């Protein structure tokens, strides 16, 4: 009996010890850098806090993704990012992200509610409640800024297109058509919703959203 108890105690201690070591290794890995250590710049849902604060506040619950009527918010997993040759940083896994060329944010146009639905869904304020008015969106939303690659864009290469301009929710302000429908971007008005990138008929896209910088 005493022998048996000894063995049991030994096994228990062994298991506890192994668990502690595993926990320490995992903890050490996580602690080995601040939360932006190996983070990548990505397009966050509207109303998101600056990346560093966002990663602190977000609890990765997925309520924003459930709320999105346009299915543009997905969890930033290795699987989801693979097709775009991206890899989430260690603290970015499962956080909400938008891949505009797959599905862009339509700023809840055409659905009911007086706020952007994902910002209303967030239980931690990682996405800050944003009213569905042009002024509030201009003030609170900065997902990124659109940039045009003039080498790819049809309108810069002798074939007028203008699809991106028609797709812009702030058409004429954020994105307006110049000569031969050349897109002209006003970075002060552009919020980075990505509808232009989604609409672009070129592949690879001639207009795309440059995500906001990681650190301000």
């Amino acid at each position, binding site marked *: 009996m005493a022998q048996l108890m000894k063995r049991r105690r030994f096994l228990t201690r062994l298991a*506890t010890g192994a668990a502690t070591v595993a926990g320490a290794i995992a903890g050490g890995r996580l602690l080995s850098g601040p939360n932006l250590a190996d983070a990548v710049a990505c397009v966050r849902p509207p109303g998101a806090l600056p990346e560093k604060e966002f990663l602190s506040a977000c609890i990765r*619950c997925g309520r924003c993704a459930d709320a999105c009527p*346009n299915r543009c918010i997905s969890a930033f997993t290795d699987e989801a990012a693979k097709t775009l040759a991206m890899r989430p940083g260690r603290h970015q896994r499962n956080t909400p992200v938008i891949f505009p060329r797959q599905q862009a944010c339509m700023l809840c146009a055409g*659905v009911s509610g007086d706020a952007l639905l994902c910002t209303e869904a967030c239980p*931690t304020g990682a996405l800050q409640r944003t009213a569905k008015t042009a002024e509030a969106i201009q003030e609170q939303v900065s997902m990124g800024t659109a940039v045009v690659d003039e080498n790819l864009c049809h309108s810069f290469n002798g074939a007028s297109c203008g699809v991106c301009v028609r797709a812009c929710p702030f058409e004429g302000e954020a994105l307006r058509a110049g000569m031969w429908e050349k897109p002209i971007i006003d970075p002060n008005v552009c919020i980075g919703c990505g509808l232009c990138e989604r609409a672009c008929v070129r592949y690879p896209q001639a207009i795309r959203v440059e995500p906001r910088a990681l650190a301000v």
Partner: protein
Amino acid sequence: MKVELKKIQVLRRTVQVSVIVLLLFIPSVSRYTNYVAAREIDDLLEKWDGTLQGESLALIDGIFRGLPGGEKERVGQIVRDREGVLSQTQQFRGGSWSAQLGPISLSDPLGALESILARQKVVRVVVVSLIVPVIATLLFGRIFCSWICPVGFMLEMSDKLRGALRYLEIRPHDMHFSRGTKYVLLVVGAAIAFISAAPVLGYIYPPAIFNREAHDLVFGIFDRAEEGKFGFWAGGLTWMSLVLLGILLFEVFVSRRWWCRYVCPGGALYSLIGAARPVRVSLIAKKCTHCADCIVACPIGLNPMLNKMGVECDNCGECISSCHDDALKYALRLRGGEENVPVFDKSKAA
């Protein structure tokens, strides 16, 4: 009295099963919302008719069209009110980690705590989402574990497999660990959240994993339907579900209810919040015949006969239902009651 308390277990099982159904319902509603918003729903209902995905969509469609504002009349025909349906589907979001049910926002205190510590700032939405869970826990203790937690339910069911193993004359081990582990894990997790400024326990906390996996599973099934493949498919699950399976197998073969008893950081937090709960299991000492059935029944491995149900008890009422002498009941009081003299005492037996 007896019948009434048996009913508590029936009610508890009903709640647990409803929670699981709800956790699968919410991601399906999310997909339904997408299809309605994209005005694809009528085509899909026709195209997917008779398949698992089609029937689920039809069921959800029926529910939301039945709700007030779900239908309207257009040119003499009753049709779905797109706007109305979309505002109703917004009443369901999230899962067991954090959820929105109608006007009520609910967050697991563990997630909210980590978010607050990591951000080092308390904001209004977090506090609002904590109101219901914290008040319920202050009054009733760890009832999330025994009534709501989908993983708790899963593990409770797998606990029954141990009985089956015994029947096959395979004696499952029951290794004991320190109950302090979960408090250590809670403190370590909170410290990591504070130092590295990111919530981390959500990655290993089973209800949070279940939340993500339920979404992955349902979304995976609908993604497949969009590709023209139907039927049930578990391929949307990620390797994280293997963690849940691992815990389950460990509990069946090595240590009974290992996770909930010794490791769960969320359970630890709920225990601490509910430490001073007024609703407790208490013993009527003169009725107790010291049969020890309650000790066997207790999923947390406590001894209700000592009449000192401390922070660990999750008020599941299994001991009350198992008592043949009506000696146990829920009572309103703040501290452990009069001590019952145990007939057998471990310290004396050794």
